[in-house]
């Protein structure tokens, strides 16, 4: 299988504090790859390293074989940050229009894609509303829409479903699966165990180290656990 993202012996530290140590993983084309771990385990740092916002202190990160950071590769992924990262004074549409312009979508594409992604996240009725008046969940969905806007082949989502109601969460997952079927690679972080189960493959992160990595089923059967939480306890306990 062709790998899209490769991390090789990646370590990262902020000042003297080591946040990631020696992470090697590769993410294949067309899979939904989950990074699972409690807050402070280094999930967001991994995401920032993949997006090229951070340069690893040690080791290297590649997207499509090109070493990050690279402006050419930045065009090819869509990123949804942990904070909503929206311009509150602007309407939903103006926010998307701004991001679409940065990705150099032409007028026709812009119109079409904005309509499409707003339908995906069910915000069509609120498209001309100022984002300041959005609820937390609506902002989260608009952020997601912005990440999907330029129809990227790789989508990186940092805690995408926080604050989103179960019905909508399900529909977002359905959308992600549809994208996956079209060959889009999806990386997402989560601290919700049952959400992790929906991923094709999982990397469990604890204190900056990958403690286990496999498909959810395999992870469970390997240590005779019934839930992902048990798996985490199993490996997390063993690491101590």
């Amino acid at each position, binding site marked *: 299988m062709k790998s899209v993202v490769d991390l090789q012996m990646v370590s990262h530290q902020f000042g003297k504090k080591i946040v990631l140590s020696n992470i090697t993983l590769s993410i294949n084309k067309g899979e939904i790859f989950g990074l699972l771990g409690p807050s402070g385990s280094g999930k967001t740092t991994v995401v920032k390293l993949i*997006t*090229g*916002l951070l*340069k690893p202190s040690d080791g290297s990160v590649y997207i499509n074989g090109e070493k990050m*950071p*690279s*402006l*050419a590769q*930045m*065009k090819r*992924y869509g*990123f949804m*940050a*942990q*904070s*909503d*990262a*929206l*311009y*509150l*004074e*602007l309407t939903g549409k*103006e926010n998307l229009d*701004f*991001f679409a*312009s*940065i*990705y150099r979508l032409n007028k026709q594409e812009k119109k079409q894609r904005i309509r499409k992604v707003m339908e995906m996240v069910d915000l069509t009725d609120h498209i001309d509303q*100022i984002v300041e008046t959005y609820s937390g969940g609506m902002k989260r969905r608009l952020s997601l829409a*912005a990440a999907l806007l330029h129809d990227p082949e790789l989508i990186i989502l940092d805690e995408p479903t926080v604050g989103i109601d179960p019905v909508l969460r399900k529909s977002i997952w359905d959308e992600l699966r549809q994208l996956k079927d079209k060959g889009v690679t999806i990386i997402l972080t989560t601290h919700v165990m049952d959400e992790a189960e929906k991923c094709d493959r999982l990397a469990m992160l604890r204190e900056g180290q990958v403690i286990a990595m496999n498909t959810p089923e395999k992870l469970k059967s390997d240590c005779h656990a019934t839930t992902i939480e048990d798996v985490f306890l199993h490996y997390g306990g063993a690491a101590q």
Partner: protein
Amino acid sequence: MNTWTITRRIFTQFRRDKRSMALMILAPIFVFTLMWLVLDSDENTLEIATIGVPSSFTEHLSAEEDVNVTSLSEAEAKEEIAEATIDAFILWKDGQPAVTIEGSDPNITSSIKDLLQNANREVSSDPFEVYFWHGSDDLELFDYIGPVLIGFFVFFFVFIVGGVSFLRERTQGTLERILSTPLKRSELVFGYLLGFGLFTILQSFLIAAYSIYVLDVYMEGYFLYVLLVTFLLALTALCLGTLLSAFAKNEFQMIQFIPLVIVPQVFFSGLFPIEGMAYWLQAIGKVMPLTYGAEALRGIMLRSEGFADFQSPLYILLGFIILFTVLNIFALKRHRSL
């Protein structure tokens, strides 16, 4: 052009955030008007008592503007001056005037000295004919500091609004978000420069036009030159504000730069005379952008300087703009090394 995309977004944000726009245009005009009301008001009437002064001299005194002369006895005069109801009394002794001034207000003291000199000259001999190379007889204090104030207010408000806007890009997470796109760091900085730059042209125009044509601040030179200098000063403030915002964690820390960066410039930019200061102290003013803006503005407005005369401070301002912009593009490396 991604630069233009950023610029367009800033415009939309301005349109929505009317309050910030008002801060940049109406606040300077408001404060400027207040200062004008305080500094440009007519001077107090001087209360002067005379004791045994010949009427020829008294007539000359009374002929001056804003002077009220009363004849008192020495005891009365001393009592009134102690209560500060009169500003000075003149006692005629052996054919010579002896003046006692109340003396607690230096402005009144110097007015009285001027007044007496004038009166004395007219009595004794032919008065000098006085001509003005620049300015005129009725140039007020406000006319002298007005040019500096125009520069200062533009600088101050652009610094605050520009700095905080750029900082908010970081605190609300959008900086990280747009740096995870193919946007170049320079495009972001230039987008801000262009967006705010176009806006500050409008701001500079309104503030300069208001002070010159409405408040009637003394103005000898070309309005367009005033606009040019004010605009460059605004751009300098914008670059400096956005650059310094990189060193602030939040809006509160941004405000903390005011006493450090803005207030010292007021003291060294020529609002107060610094010629008498030690050389190294004067040198402090040389690293401050406002000094050059104020110098050029004063040249244009008070001395009707042409482009050739005020161009060197302009080049220095341009130098500041380039320096701060480059530093800013470099400072953004902290958020994305590329």
